[in-house]
């Protein structure tokens, strides 16, 4: 459905909440019937989160555990369409500037106090700007955020912002209790250790270094839910032990990079286990080789094209990632909105790579080396190490010598933030929309000495213009056209060598039902998850 039609539908529905979206609501309740109550779900959290308040810390493991305790206004289906959560319905004004949400009137905090629109306004206007790295970029676009009544919240934008409807998931807007936090130092509030949320599960116990134990919230606003009595997340730091835990049934669910991919491939074939790669669409990272566009000879587009030709990306996908992934073709993941497939393609060809380097006048010396580049290897697992080694091997064949430099998390982030690298293997969440998670790496206004910005130093005024226009365009068709053009330019200039659209195996006990229902998958509240039989 096009955005305009969708506005029409909303208007045709007349009253708030009677339009198209309650479909999602009925769906949720349909799922809510027929489940089996009871049971404890055991899973793994790795690494251990430092804190369970999602508004204070947005680390991935925090999101996963805290997503059961806290809720946001919306969640998103696997096609990134909004679905209800704390908001039971919403409307967007035809000019794309006013977003009105109706909240669940029965929603309550874990301490029994009602959850109202004041909590939402407080979270977006006061709490998150203090603690959330993306809050200003998103809610800073609002002229006002108001609560006309206890169950209505109105976000008024200064100018339209296409991806705004995509910014209401638990990582962007985890709604916090105003009565606990208002007037306190939110970062040091004791409630951060004993979080009071509104989600289907409450924190019972957290033994650091061992496990996090969540139990059912009996006062959850959806009647009859959640099904599970408890969820236990175990902290298991060793990869072999994690695989063993799934294998012998100690845990019934693993996600993200819990398992080394060779274990994932092996265990997904066990008869009692099922595997899915769905539920990561909101994040949809692309594994890429960032190339420092400032440093000669990497500053030459032909050099970067040669790198694209020299690396066999299918090999990386099949052999290093054990088939979990898809060769990337564009800076936008094919699962993210506004992906454009018709762009310059780069086949694996050592001859083409060499020809491009020759054309540049980059001649090999006696040892066959044309140039030497530095690649700090990030400390995020075996897979990174293997891929970097493969890149070194591949580029050596065309005369580019790669020096791998080992790092730990502190030194790695420091080097990338300071642009102290030639190449960098990395991946970033896309948050469903190019304006939220893609253009930040390519627009020149975002060249900063800070992580997750345009650290490669790519500058193209045309790309800047297209990205800016696309962010504020109201209609999807217009945005698609702008983003398509932008992708064509970027792919031709290769500021970053995109390798593989990553997929993550979620492996689970086949008795588990309704496990992955949305684009945030295992970060979802799990209110409808149950064990069959």
């Amino acid at each position, binding site marked *: 459905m096009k955005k305009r039609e969708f506005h029409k539908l909303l208007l045709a529905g007349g009253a708030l909440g009677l339009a198209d979206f309650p479909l999602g609501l009925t769906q949720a309740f349909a799922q809510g019937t027929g489940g089996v109550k009871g049971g404890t779900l055991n899973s793994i959290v790795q690494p251990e989160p430092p804190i369970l308040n999602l508004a204070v810390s947005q680390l991935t493991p925090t999101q996963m555990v805290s997503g059961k305790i806290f809720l946001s206004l919306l969640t998103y289906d696997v096609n990134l369409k909004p679905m209800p959560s704390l908001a039971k319905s919403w409307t967007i004004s035809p000019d794309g500037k006013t977003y009105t949400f109706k909240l669940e009137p029965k929603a309550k905090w874990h301490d029994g106090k009602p959850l109202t629109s004041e909590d939402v306004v407080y979270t977006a206007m006061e709490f998150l700007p203090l603690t959330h*790295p993306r809050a200003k970029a998103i809610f800073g676009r609002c002229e006002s955020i108001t609560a006309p009544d206890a169950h209505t919240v109105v976000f008024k934008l200064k100018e339209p912002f296409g991806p705004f409807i995509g910014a209401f998931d638990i990582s962007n807007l985890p709604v916090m209790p105003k009565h606990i936090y208002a007037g306190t130092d939110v970062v040091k509030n004791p409630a951060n250790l004993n979080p009071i949320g509104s989600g289907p599960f409450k924190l019972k116990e957290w033994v650091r*270094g*061992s496990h996090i134990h969540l139990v059912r919230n009996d006062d959850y606003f959806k009647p009859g839910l959640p099904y599970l009595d408890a969820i236990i997340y175990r902290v298991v730091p060793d990869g072999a032990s994690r695989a*063993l835990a799934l294998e012998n049934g100690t845990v019934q669910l693993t996600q993200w990079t819990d398992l080394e991919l060779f274990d994932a491939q092996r265990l997904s074939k066990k008869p009692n286990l099922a595997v899915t790669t769905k539920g990561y669409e909101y994040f949809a990272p692309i594994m890429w080789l960032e190339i420092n566009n400032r440093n000669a000879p990497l500053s030459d587009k032909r050099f970067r094209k040669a790198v694209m030709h020299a690396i066999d990306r299918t090999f990386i996908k099949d052999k290093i990632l054990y088939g979990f992934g898809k060769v990337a073709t564009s800076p936008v993941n094919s699962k993210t909105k506004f992906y454009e497939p018709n762009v310059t393609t780069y086949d694996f060809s050592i001859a083409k790579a060499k020809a491009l380097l020759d054309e540049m006048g980059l001649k090999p010396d006696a040892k066959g080396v044309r140039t030497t580049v530095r690649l700090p290897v990030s400390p995020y697992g075996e897979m990174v190490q293997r891929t970097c080694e493969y890149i070194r091997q591949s580029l050596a064949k065309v005369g580019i010598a790669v020096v791998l430099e080992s790092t730990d*998390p502190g030194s790695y*982030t*420091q080097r990338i933030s300071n642009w102290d690298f030639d190449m960098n293997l990395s991946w970033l*969440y896309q948050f469903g929309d190019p304006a939220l998670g893609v253009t930040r790496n390519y627009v020149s206004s975002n060249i*900063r000495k800070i992580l997750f910005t345009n650290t490669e130093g790519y500058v193209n005024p045309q790309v800047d213009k297209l990205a800016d226009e696309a962010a504020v365009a109201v209609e999807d068709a217009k945005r698609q056209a702008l983003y398509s053009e932008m992708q064509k330019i970027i792919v031709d200039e290769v500021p970053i060598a995109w390798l593989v659209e990553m997929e993550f195996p979620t492996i689970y006990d086949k008795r588990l039902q309704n496990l992955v229902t949305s684009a945030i998958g295992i970060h979802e509240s799990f209110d409808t998850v149950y064990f069959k039989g």
Partner: protein
Amino acid sequence: MNLQWLQGLGALGVRLAKMVAVVLLIAIFNFMLVRAAPGDPALVMAGQSGATDEAFLKRVRAEYGLDQPMPTQLATYLGKVVRLDLGYSHRQQRTVLSAILERLPATLLLTLSAFAISLVGGVVLGSLAGVRAGKLSDTLISLLALVIYATPVFWLGLMLVLLFSVQLGWLPAFGYETIGVTMSTWAGIVDKLKHLALPAFTLGMLYLAIYARLMRSSIIEVSHQDYVKTARAKGASDSRILWRHMLRNALLPVVTMAGVQAGTLIGGSVVIETVFAWPGLGRLTYDAVLQRDYQVMLGVFLVLSVLVIFFNWLTDLLYRVIDPRIKAA
């Protein structure tokens, strides 16, 4: 008599003063060392959050006190150390002391069990091998000790898990206790012991091998001493010679080694704790290093250095008990 007692007290005072000075020097050194590592907690946090902005980094640095000049930070830190305040982990939102105390029981349980296993096993096996030097049992024990000593401890742990947890199903593969069930006190203790068995045995093995080898050579050395020959000449039985004459003297090198290791044992073993998902201090420290959680790092380092110094002193005292000829303060 009175004078001697006073002298002893004076010596103790000097020793205490030295210990305090060493702790302060270590504290300063730790501070410098920790800051020499590239990157800071704000950057690590940003790296893990998947997004960031300058204001966020600035807020985190201000909150952690990292925006102050380095000498001010050092002075603040030392001021706290003097007041026995280990500081506050902003990352975990709690005091360093509570973070350490929370991990201490699990660590003590693991390391003390391993220590006991290794000390008793090592002394017994080493003595056996020593008195039967050159015989088959000596060769077997020495070979075993050598093999264990040369085996990477994480591999040994994984192999034990494969055997006892996967193949035989006797013992749990990892964890500290069974989670999410309520048990009677007795069942709870049995459950903990079952979880403890593999990690304690694995960690104990490494030290057992060291002590066994040490004890063996020590026994052999002592057995050539004149007083042992005299005992033998006067017709004392082998067991009496071993128990009454040799053991005490042969123990000294083992006590020295054990004394040095006792202090560091409290720090836990990162490898064993990782393989067996044991919630001990070793992993707390390791995570703190990776996350640049300066306060936790400094806190653990300080506690450990105090413990090492304390155990060194205790070892000196123990020498005196074992061998009254040695004078110690």
